[in-house]
């Protein structure tokens, strides 16, 4: 069973912290792009070099962006229709669309729900309007509430909210407002991302002037978020992801479990048959039939470990043995014990996983553990 990722590279405007690939929304171009997506879904020409003889059956579909909601319910519906006509989709498939609260209406959710969308990921970022403004998000808190209500009223109750930690003006207290909002709104899933200042963004140039919380405070916010959500029955399952039991994002879990997925659209990545490939960040090229290009081989043991260690479930030693037919690396285990002594990692006879404090320095820990 594979996952299908569909990239919608358009946004109303670019958020000042975002370095992901996106274009300013333009109706004509967006139409041409949707046409190209449908063409690719039907013909498979752009990925054929990698997908020959692949039997596709999807149990997750994920519209990511960019801002997928910006293309409107009808286009989402057309694309899904094409997907369903060309591929096998399991009956209980998780079909997610990322939405920006400013570009969704009751009508959008109605059409999306009718087309089969059963999960919404809403880019709220913060429930505090002052923080949202600093992040360049247009919609206010009321608009977010309205979007949640519209989604639920159309039967889409599996809702995820994106929130950000360490954003300008944020304090533990203001973060509590955001977390309380999430809890009260009864959503099933929360993604909490610590802000990273990326090069080539307005935030990068402004960073000295931005009223950013200190790194220490951001770390506190992260640990606080984990604790508070847990108290309210929303459990961390990945570095940045939290869910009520059984509402973990099945699509995103495919990434961390080293499962296969097909990604369509500029800058979308795929992992099929042991090979990782992707489309360049060039929408025009995609529309004109530009092909996916090879990136790397995937699925080896180090990659598996790197990805699984992002999960609270961590790495099962017996599963590792089963999957790779070899003993678990002893050196890794020895190194892990050093981190355990610092409270950064849990280790028992059959499992290694990072603690919340460990997640905060996971780059170092993982790179250290994997240099065996």
């Amino acid at each position: 069973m594979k996952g299908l990722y569909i990239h919608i590279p358009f946004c109303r405007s670019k958020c000042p912290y975002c370095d992901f690939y996106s274009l300013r929304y333009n109706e004509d171009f967006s139409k041409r792009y949707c046409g190209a997506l449908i063409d690719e879904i039907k013909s498979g020409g752009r990925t054929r070099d990698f997908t020959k003889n692949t039997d596709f059956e999807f149990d997750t579909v994920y519209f990511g962006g960019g801002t997928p909601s910006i293309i409107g319910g009808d286009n989402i519906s057309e694309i899904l229709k094409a997907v369903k006509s060309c591929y096998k989709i399991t009956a209980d498939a998780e079909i997610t669309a990322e939405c920006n609260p400013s570009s969704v209406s009751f009508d959008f959710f109605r059409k999306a729900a009718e087309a089969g969308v059963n999960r919404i990921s809403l880019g709220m970022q913060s429930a505090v309007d002052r923080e949202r403004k600093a992040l360049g998000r247009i919609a206010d808190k009321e608009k977010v509430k309205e979007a949640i209500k519209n989604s639920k009223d159309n039967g889409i109750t599996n809702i995820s909210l994106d929130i950000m930690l360490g954003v300008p003006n944020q304090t533990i207290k203001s973060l509590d407002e955001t977390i309380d909002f999430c809890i009260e709104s009864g959503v099933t899933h929360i993604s909490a991302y610590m802000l990273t200042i990326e090069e080539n963004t307005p935030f990068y140039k402004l960073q000295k002037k931005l009223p950013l919380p200190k790194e220490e405070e951001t770390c506190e916010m992260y640990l606080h978020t984990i604790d508070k959500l847990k108290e309210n029955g929303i459990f961390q399952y990945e570095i940045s992801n939290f869910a009520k039991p059984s509402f973990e994002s099945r699509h995103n879990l495919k990434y961390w479990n080293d499962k296969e997925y097909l990604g369509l659209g500029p800058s979308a990545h795929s992992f099929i048959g042991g090979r990782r490939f992707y489309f360049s960040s060039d929408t025009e090229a995609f529309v004109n039939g530009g092909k996916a290009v090879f990136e790397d081989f995937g699925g080896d043991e180090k990659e598996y470990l790197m990805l699984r260690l992002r999960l609270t479930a961590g790495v099962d030693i017996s599963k590792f043995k089963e999957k790779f037919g070899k003993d678990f690396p002893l050196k890794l285990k020895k190194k892990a014990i050093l981190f355990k002594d610092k409270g950064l990692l849990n280790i028992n006879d059959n499992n290694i996983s990072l603690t919340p404090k460990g997640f905060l320095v996971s780059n170092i820990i993982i790179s250290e553990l994997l240099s065996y």
Partner: protein
Amino acid sequence: MKVKKDNIRNFSIIAHIDHGKSTLADRLLEITNTVAKRDMQQQILDDMDLERERGITIKAHAVTLNYSLDGKDYELNLIDTPGHVDFNYEVSRSLAACEGAVLIVDSTQGIEAQTLANTYLALDHDLELVPVINKIDLPAADPDTVAKDIEEIIGLDGSSAPRVSAKTGKNVEAVLEEIINLVPCPEGDDDAPLKALVFDSVYDNYKGVIVYVRIMDGKIKPGDTMRMMATGAEFTVVEVGKMAATSLTPTKMLCAGEVGYITASIKTVRDARVGDTVTTAENPASEPLEGYKKVNPMVFCGIYPADGADYEALKEALEKLQLNDAALSFEPETSGALGFGFRCGFLGLLHLEIIQERLEREYNLDLVSTVPSVIYKIHMRNGDVLEIDNPTKYPDPAEIDFSEEPVTDAHIFSPPEYVGTIMDLCQERRGVYRGMNYISSDRVEITYDLPLNEIIYDFFDALKSRTKGYASFDYELKGYARSNLVKLDVLLNGSAVDALSFIIHSDKAYGRARKIAEKLKDNIPRQMFEIPVQIAIGGKIIARETVKALRKDVLAKCYGGDITRKKKLLEKQKEGKKRMRSFGTVEVPQEAFMAILKLDEQ
């Protein structure tokens, strides 16, 4: 009987850095057809990449130019000289091989520190000076003022000095005419015992050492047994000849007054050191030529391979460089922090930097070097005198009676408006004021006694930046003076890192300790635990900083299934670690070592 060799002229070109020495040399080669125009590359005598990049001449070179004037053919031997104070001894040997020197003065800059230093050096060797005013093509050129300065400051006739543009070639022929007219021709006795001055020696893979000589008396030919008078070493001459710009031309013999080369299957330049006198075993001279001195390194530092596995490669590279550089010394040393490496000795900081750069570039080595040191004389209570060039060998202070450090005689030339700034700088560097001399209305010479260990870090950089590049600087070793020295130790996470220790004047200890602690704090990447950085004299901590523990290093988001980006990031992290040095549990990047060498950069 001494005979005038009136078709020969032997000369050098001397100038302050950047006044156009190499460019003029290029032009002379070109107009005498020594190098065909199509083979001309910029600054042909500076054949090392580094020389071209830095705009300095590191090694002396020589070339024979053929030129006719008024129907007579002349052989003009141009002996190029290194242009930096670190290589003063080589300059002096080059000058000793000549009868005259072309003194270039930049018409936009006027007279600078090395203009004067080189002039005095040339006058010491009784050379006839041929002043040349260069860069007249530039809009800022002021040849009249420069001509006046030459008369007033140097005491030469500036009015007849050729005004040239070495860059465009304008009026460069006049320089050749002046050389022929002003520089005396050499004199010598072909039948006397051989006395030839070695002014340069270069190792060549095929011929062995090529010894560049000026024959003062006598003659030499292949088959003769040559003898080095300083060492007594003897070799059978394989080849003698003259130097073209890019090749060697063998001849039957070299006679008195001539400049040429000798090869004799000599294995290293240490056997044919610059300044030595060559004679023959068959008919030896009774006395060598004057002035040979073995040059001794003044600045020392430890050089270690960043990767311990490269130790042998570093050793080989140093051996190869030494074949060509008698002034470079090295011996194995071990550091608790850095492992196996070498204690290397250099003529000065530039020499050190050049060697480091060549090791890294030409031999592709990754290096870690320790703080440079000079040689301190430590007088012990029991009467022993220790010469210490390595802080780790510093004895127990309780057993020290007193210490001495090397002091230089430093001359700084500058426009008058920077005098205050320069005096501040020299004061900070523990200089003792010796005098000030207005050499012209816009040029002052300031003389200080400056401790050598204050110069070797970054004095030159500091001087340049504080005077907007207008000041120039020259120094020579004066002697040793009593000094109050202490050894500073750096402790990371409680354990001393021997490679970071150094010796310093006690007045400077606190200030420098604070700066070092700060620099280390800024340059040691945060690790998962807090790292105390302490600077100590003996058991006493005099400065302390803390590298805070790293709390956050995480890739929060994965975008569109882009796993490869994550993998690459982790790999980069691993690569970064490779360049680190582990001290116990603390990892220190190479940059931290470099940073404490450049404390004064703001």
